[in-house]
């Protein structure tokens, strides 16, 4: 009797063995948090960024911006599934330092595929939401004047030629990760990439008709503020989700992200208040985006004081960068993608070397601040050069073939009616 019980107990334990081994690979808590983070990051684009951007353009172009964000989300999802996920996270064999490969049409990814401690499907989805928001950020540079076909072609090809390889260098086992380059949540992959592509696009495509003399004030600031607030909430998934685990790393990333957003908001607000005598609503929310973009590469590596310092610097530096691009260089990066995301991404990626050091309240560096700074600089330069050159070639080729810009009278009439046969408001 007793023997039977012991035997059945042992049998029972043996029967559970595979399940226990399986549980060691896939962690339920981690999986739950990354599923949640995936939702939050998609929420940043739809509807967060879409509302933020659409409120900032003129009423005649509100739908074109919403449409571009929506269509990019759809297009990137399919391109990601077909080829880009493999290029970013697959095994590139002898070329693995430069670019990944395989996993075309998600081949080989099933219920049992595991990435770290989460199912690979979850990792695939989480990373896809980053791939969606990056080209969506770029549209701010050429808002109110680009053909819809050009937006789609540019976004799809740019994802394959720029986003996927840079993503592979940094997170997919490429040469920058071998070098010890630190980018926790996408300072280079998302923000420098989007910012540089935006600047190149703004220069090649040219200013909007009438810029900067004509009145081009935002048509609906309340939409813009709602969208910006959604970005803040979604960014917790972006940065704390990039821990890829539900633990202390995610907790610290969320904390410094929040502190930096608050500090960036106040810093930008203060700059405008001092310079123009009034604090503006668009100013405080733009400072928030700058603080969030700048903390992104550092979010899993720095402490609360680092978050505070990075946020304050982001608000001030991105504010002056915006003034410089718009008022001195007279470049119509219409929604200020480069001065906020590009400059913020560069600043944050470099400052990661400083504030990750234990002496600066960070979570620690493998080498010295100096040597890490050089590594960060290499990563920044590589991203800027690759993204700048490839984006330039891509835009020139599209301009020569399908054409980038709508005609002058179409631009005056507004993209909503001309490209989509609809109007945003019937009042």
């Amino acid at each position, binding site marked *: 009797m007793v023997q039977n019980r012991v035997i059945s107990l042992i049998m029972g334990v043996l029967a559970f063995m595979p399940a226990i081994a399986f549980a060691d690979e896939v962690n339920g808590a981690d999986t739950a948090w990354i599923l949640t983070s995936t939702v939050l990051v998609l929420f940043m684009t739809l509807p967060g960024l879409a509302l933020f951007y659409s409120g*900032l353009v003129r009423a005649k172009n509100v739908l074109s911006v919403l449409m571009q964000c929506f269509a990019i989300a759809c297009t990137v999802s399919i391109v990601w599934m077909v080829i880009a996920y493999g290029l970013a996270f697959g095994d590139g064999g002898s070329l693995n330092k430069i670019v990944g490969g395989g996993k075309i049409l998600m081949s080989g990814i099933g219920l049992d595929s595991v990435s770290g401690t989460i199912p690979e499907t979850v990792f695939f989805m989480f990373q896809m939401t980053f791939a969606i928001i990056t080209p969506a950020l770029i549209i701010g540079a050429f808002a109110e004047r680009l053909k819809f076909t050009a937006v789609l072609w540019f976004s799809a090809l740019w994802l394959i030629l720029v986003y996927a390889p840079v993503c592979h260098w940094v997170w997919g086992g490429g040469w920058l990760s071998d070098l010890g380059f630190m980018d926790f949540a996408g300072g280079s992959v998302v923000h420098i990439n989007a910012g540089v592509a935006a600047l190149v696009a703004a220069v090649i495509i040219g200013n909007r008709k009438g810029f900067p003399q004509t009145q081009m004030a935002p048509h609906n600031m309340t939409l813009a503020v709602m969208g910006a607030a959604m970005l803040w909430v979604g960014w917790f998934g972006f940065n704390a989700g990039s821990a890829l685990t539900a633990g202390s790393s995610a907790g610290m990333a969320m904390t410094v992200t929040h502190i930096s957003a608050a500090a960036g908001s106040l810093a930008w607000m203060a700059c405008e208040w001092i310079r123009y005598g009034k604090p503006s609503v668009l100013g405080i929310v733009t400072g928030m985006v700058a603080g969030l973009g700048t903390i992104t590469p550092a979010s899993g590596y720095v402490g609360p004081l680092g978050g505070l310092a990075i946020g304050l610097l982001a608000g001030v530096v991105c504010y002056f960068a915006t003034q410089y691009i718009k008022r001195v260089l007279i470049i119509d990066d219409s929604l200020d993608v480069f001065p906020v995301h590009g400059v913020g991404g560069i600043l944050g990626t470099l400052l990661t070397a400083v504030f990750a050091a234990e002496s600066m309240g960070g979570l620690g560096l493998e080498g010295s601040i100096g040597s890490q700074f050089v590594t960060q600089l290499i990563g920044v330069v590589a991203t800027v050069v690759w993204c700048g050159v490839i984006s330039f070639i891509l835009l020139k080729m599209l301009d020569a073939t399908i054409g980038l810009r709508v005609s002058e009278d179409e631009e005056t009439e507004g993209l909503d009616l001309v490209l989509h046969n609809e109007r945003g408001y019937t009042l």
Partner: protein
Amino acid sequence: MKLLIAVIKPYKLDDVRDALSEVGVQGLTVTEVKGFGRQKGHTELYRGAEYVVDFLPKTKLEIALDDEQVDTAIEAITKAAGTGKIGDGKIFVQDLEQAVRIRTGEAGSDAL
């Protein structure tokens, strides 16, 4: 008959309406308009992009009156809409040839 056209500060509309009712004005038409006068426009700033707004929002009133009501109506509007600052607005007076009440077909002063 005269037609008074008054352009006033939008927030003074209720005061003016009350003042006109007190002096026996039976009806008026209100339109939201934009314009400029001696009061300068204002500047709007969006991330450093500066836009000068030349045309300010105003409220336009159209009031049809018998000749003898005109002076009291002008006085009522001036008192109610005045702040003493630039931008209070203007009153224009025109001759009015005819007025017809659509429901009854009454014409002239009877229609006012």
